[in-house]
């Protein structure tokens, strides 16, 4: 392992939270810490994971939801200290790694087929 890889491992190791196993097609609740001046609070962003970009500490997930008729996507760096928690609330059967096609779908056709044997973690 070269020095750079060692450093990236250390960045990962510094996270306090252990990541849920997130996959494309999952419905997730991302708890994001938001600091406004002095105060900080936790905001929850819930939607479908449409893309995972792996890269050690640079790993990001793109979460898409439809909020009052408008599609909203947010990219979260999973190693960020500002992310308190990522909860997987549902898993769906998907046949590709990137679900960009969902952007062109709306309503019924934008639904994903739930995975039958997915058990929600307590």
């Amino acid at each position, binding site marked *: 392992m070269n020095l*750079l890889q060692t*450093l990236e491992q250390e960045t990962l190791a510094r996270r306090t939270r252990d990541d849920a196993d997130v996959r494309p097609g999952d419905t997730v609740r991302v708890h994001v810490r938001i600091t406004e001046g002095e105060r900080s609070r936790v905001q929850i962003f819930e939607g479908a994971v449409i893309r995972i970009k792996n890269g050690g500490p640079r790993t990001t997930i793109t979460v898409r939801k439809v909020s009052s008729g408008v599609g909203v996507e947010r990219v979260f760096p999973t190693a*960020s200290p500002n992310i308190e928690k990522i909860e997987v609330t549902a898993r769906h059967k998907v046949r590709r790694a990137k679900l960009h096609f969902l952007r062109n779908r709306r309503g019924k056709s934008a639904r994903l087929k739930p995975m039958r044997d997915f058990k929600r973690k307590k």
Partner: protein
Amino acid sequence: MANESMGLIGRKIGMTQIFADDGAALAVTVVQVGPNTVLQVKSGEGNDRYNAIQLGFGIQKERRQTKALRGHFAKANASGIRHVREVRLSADKASSFEPGQILGVEDAFAVGGYADAIGTSKGKGFAGVMKKYNFAGFIATHGSHEFFRHGGSIGTRLTPGRVFKGKKMPGRMGGYRKTIQNLEIVKVDAERNLVFLRGGVPGPNGGIVVVRNAVKK
């Protein structure tokens, strides 16, 4: 007058991403600066005529070095040094160092400061004007052909009747000494002699760079 800021020789390790305390993701270049050996202190007197310290970094088998080099290193109780660079300092600062002294990151850099990185940029070979000077090239459609990446006209007519000196034209790009100024020092790792600089540093991973405290900050 040359700059007076302390610097060290290092090796570019590569780029990665780290998170700041407020959670911001920063793109950083990791440079291993040191251990550096002070090989010589130039005093401003005698043959030297200026104040500087000469630093050594890296290892090379002694049998590959000339006797002259070995002799020079021996004066500082060092041997098998691969890279030698000078850092110009004021007379006071330079005289605070002694030949043979070993320097690490903390002797030069602190978190929150700014640094300049000097290295040899990656050679791009013979490059066209679009890559080299960001020219716009030529239109791709409306019947144009064979001019897509050209630079256009290079001059006027009978007046002045020649092409101006310094006209930007295709040619060698990269592979020369380049200085990147005012990179923020985000983190310092004393144990492994690492500095984390926010932004890019010239040259390939593994390349030799001189990192010094920013001259213009």
